[in-house]
């Protein structure tokens, strides 16, 4: 039997850190990258006599996610204790949701070749993150930092619907985009605000039973997720081919070797002794609260893409525009301000987005020009005040360098206004023709493609003020004689 006789079954558990101001069960600041133990309290340190309190904003973000995933919201939410001992877990239990999580079900579509595939969710639940243990700085000790202990997490659990490493990649990318869109998290895997565990099993194609799966924990990049899944699938297929049994295991992925390996096997490690947390009464979510959050939701990426396509924007362009919510916001405002949508979209695709990527860390919110300025810029071109190419090549950089300037004024002061003074053009044409006798001969002998060369020369001489179409028209006439 060959590898292609097998099917890979993958389900993911994605942990998303929420960008609330404070932790989920206490008022410590939700911080990142600070010195150790600077954002803790008696509560997050699990001092005797302390009690938890749920953060309303964490629940709201859970509701927003549920709406984005099309999940069914549980209006009664309960919290449970999950017990295990580890130095970065101060209470020796994690407050999580075992029985009545914030939402169940839902699905998203991911690209699959020319079409899409639907990946379903089992449920999403809220829980608190543990602190951080550093094992490699001190030779004798592990160092414990509890700044992160209590950070709000949403754990998003899929059904085992994925069938390839590529699908895993695309799923994570789609989920990341969605989570950022609705503004609940940075969902940055390298920084740790999003991590995932991959559950992988294999079976013969045609089989309906699910075999034992192995869980690869704490993967922090899409690339590693793909590698881990690919490696793990191969490992299991090999075992199956050899007629061996696949044990259910928890695995760790080593990004240097590209392999998975078993984590230290702790006996009874998985008797978490869940029970309802007596310190936290259920949280009830009302219809009004859900409605309020729904009202504040942005249009989701795929729906927005559809809207753009309906506005006659090309699909490839629409795809680029919907990548970030900030781009959509900017684009929509620009489309409002400037009627020629194709000009506006071109400007976004060819100028705004590339500039943002290269010079502003892909963060459109730091892009120096306002929508109003961009609209004014486009208006100048539209009204024929400046040639398109001149505007793009000269006025645009000048505006970036002086972001407070008014485009029209800058255009004037730089002398970039379009000039269709035909005498001047005729003179320039004559000059260029005289300076380039060889090319003129070649053109007249049949190399009509050289017209571009001549237009370019004249444009350069005109310092970009003349309309290239007019130049071409006159040049063609002049060269014929």
């Amino acid at each position: 039997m060959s590898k292609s006789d097998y099917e890979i079954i993958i389900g993911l558990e994605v942990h998303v850190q929420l960008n609330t101001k404070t932790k989920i069960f206490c008022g410590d600041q939700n911080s990142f990258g600070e010195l150790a133990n600077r954002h803790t309290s008696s509560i997050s340190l699990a001092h005797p006599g302390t009690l938890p309190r749920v953060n309303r904003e964490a629940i709201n973000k859970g509701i927003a996610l549920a709406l984005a995933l099309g999940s069914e919201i549980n209006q009664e939410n309960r919290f449970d204790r999950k017990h295990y001992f580890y130095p970065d877990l101060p209470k020796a239990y994690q407050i999580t949701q075992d029985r009545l999580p914030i939402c169940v079900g839902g699905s998203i579509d991911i690209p699959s070749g020319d079409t899409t595939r639907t990946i379903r969710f089992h449920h999403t639940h809220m829980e608190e993150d543990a602190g951080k243990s550093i094992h490699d700085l001190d030779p004798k000790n592990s160092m414990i930092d509890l700044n992160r202990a209590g950070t709000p997490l949403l754990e998003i659990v899929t059904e085992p619907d994925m069938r390839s490493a590529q699908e895993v990649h695309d799923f994570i990318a789609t989920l990341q985009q969605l989570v950022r869109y609705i503004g609940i998290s940075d969902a940055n895997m390298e920084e740790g605000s999003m991590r995932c565990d991959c559950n992988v099993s294999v079976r013969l194609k045609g089989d309906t039973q699910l075999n034992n799966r192995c869980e690869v924990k704490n993967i922090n990049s899409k690339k590693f997720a793909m590698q881990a899944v690919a490696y793990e699938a191969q490992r299991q297929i090999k075992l199956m081919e050899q007629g061996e049994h696949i044990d259910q295991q928890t695995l760790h992925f080593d990004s240097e070797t590209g392999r998975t390996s078993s984590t230290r096997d702790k006996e009874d490690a998985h008797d978490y002794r869940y029970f309802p947390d007596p310190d936290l009464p259920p949280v009830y979510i009302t219809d009004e609260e859900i409605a309020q959050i729904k009202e504040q939701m942005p249009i989701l990426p795929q729906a927005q893409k559809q809207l753009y396509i309906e506005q006659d924007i090309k699909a490839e362009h629409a795809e680029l525009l919907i990548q970030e919510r900030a781009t959509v916001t900017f684009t929509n405002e620009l489309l409002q301000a400037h009627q020629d949508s194709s000009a506006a979209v071109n400007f976004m695709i060819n100028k705004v987005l590339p500039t943002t990527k290269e010079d502003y860390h892909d963060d459109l919110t730091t892009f120096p020009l306002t929508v109003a300025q961009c609209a004014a810029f486009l208006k100048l071109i539209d009204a024929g005040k400046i040639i398109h190419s001149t505007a793009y090549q000269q006025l645009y950089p000048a505006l970036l360098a002086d972001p407070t300037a008014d485009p029209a004024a800058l255009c004037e002061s730089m002398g970039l206004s379009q000039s269709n003074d035909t005498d001047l053009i005729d003179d320039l044409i004559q000059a260029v023709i005289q300076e380039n006798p060889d090319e003129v001969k070649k053109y007249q002998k049949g190399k009509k493609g050289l017209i571009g060369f001549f237009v370019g020369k004249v444009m350069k001489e005109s310092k970009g003020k003349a309309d290239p179409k007019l130049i071409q028209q006159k040049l063609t006439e002049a060269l014929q004689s």
Partner: protein
Amino acid sequence: MKGQNLNNIQAAIRQGELSVTQVVNHYLAQIEDSLPLNIYIEVFAEEAKKQAQALDEKLAAGESVGKLYGSVISIKDVICYEGHQVTAASKILEGFTSQFTATALQRLLDEDAIVIGRTNCDEFAMGSANENSVYGVTPNGVNSERVAGGSSGAAAVSVQQDTCLVALGTDTGGSVRQPAGFNGVIGMKPTYGRVSRYGVIAYGSSFDQIGVLGQHMEDVGEFLLTMAGEDPMDCTSSSQPVKTESSSQGQVSFAYIDEVMNHEKLHGAIATSSHALMDRLESEGHAVSKVQFPLLKYLVPAYYVLTTAEASSNLGRYDGIRYGYRSEAADSIKNVYQKTRSEGFGSEVKRRIMLGTFVLSSGYYDAYYTKAQKVRRLVTEAIHEIFENHDFLILPTTPNVAWKIGAHQDDPVEVYLSDIYTVIANLTGIPAISLPLATDADGNPFGIQLMSKKFSEAELIAVSEMLIST
């Protein structure tokens, strides 16, 4: 000054016959005299004197002071007081200083109560005799060969020995009422959720409440109601407004439980005195009726399953990593946990942690934990029914008087079973009070309990005042 209630103390202060400093000095002298009883783990002598002096200065200057001025209280070693050590009478919290004050205590401090010291107790409030403490036994204040009761044993003795006006204890299964009964003082537990648990070292989260012990009913009531009220720091605290005026007038109705009064373990003297009291009440025109409560024998089992489960979870945090005792043999993560916890916890605590871990563990959860929760519902419904037809439940505090120290070392179950009359209030969350009833032939005190429906503290206090006054 000896044995005076707060009203009289404040009257004397206002008339210039007494100063707060003298009050504090009186109690400090009492503490000195009662040192052999091992009541206090720590006495805040200098601090108390300073606070007293500050109050006296304010009073002399005619400035306003809190309504509890002139009062001196003791706190059980499970109540957090910022800047002070709190150890739950355990080695595992050796040297731990709390960084905040329990909300309930803060409310008393805001009214100018002075804390004179922290009292001994059973480790992590687990025990009924104050014999399970790393600081040693606190014996009964009336008969020092007998147990003080527990877990707030020393709190009861601190009041009985007049070392403070009232004592704060905690009551999870009777830990305020039973020692109160054994020492001839009053002990009251509020409705679950009436007083904040923020700052109370947790044992049984759905059972624990701060309770008040004292010699005078008005003081016990006043302190309880001052602490009462919702606390945003405690999600289990109730938002029900605190009623301070009783709405019951004149004749009330009492119910006593047949199975309680006929219990095989109930001592004759206690049964006799209890019946005598009920007869008296009847003669005064109150209704006194017998009710059946067949669930009585299931109270203690359900109580121990649920509280040990919660305790096993609540005590997981004691590991010597962020605070407290760490074993010297802690040479690996594994040993930090194992050695620290094994050396740091006493045997009763370990017993309850093991039992609690067992009832929560996979395979046993439904048979034990869920089962006990169902029994809790049955008991709650049965009690609710009783209160549909009667105002108060009346029953002895304990089946027995205080036993001799060391008598039950080998028999924890025997001790657990003696909680039978008190746990009912913790299982159902209702308020309960133990009032001194009488003593047996050897002079050992015992108490009578009154219980009422949830959030009826005002009524319970009123009827207690009525009962005591005659």
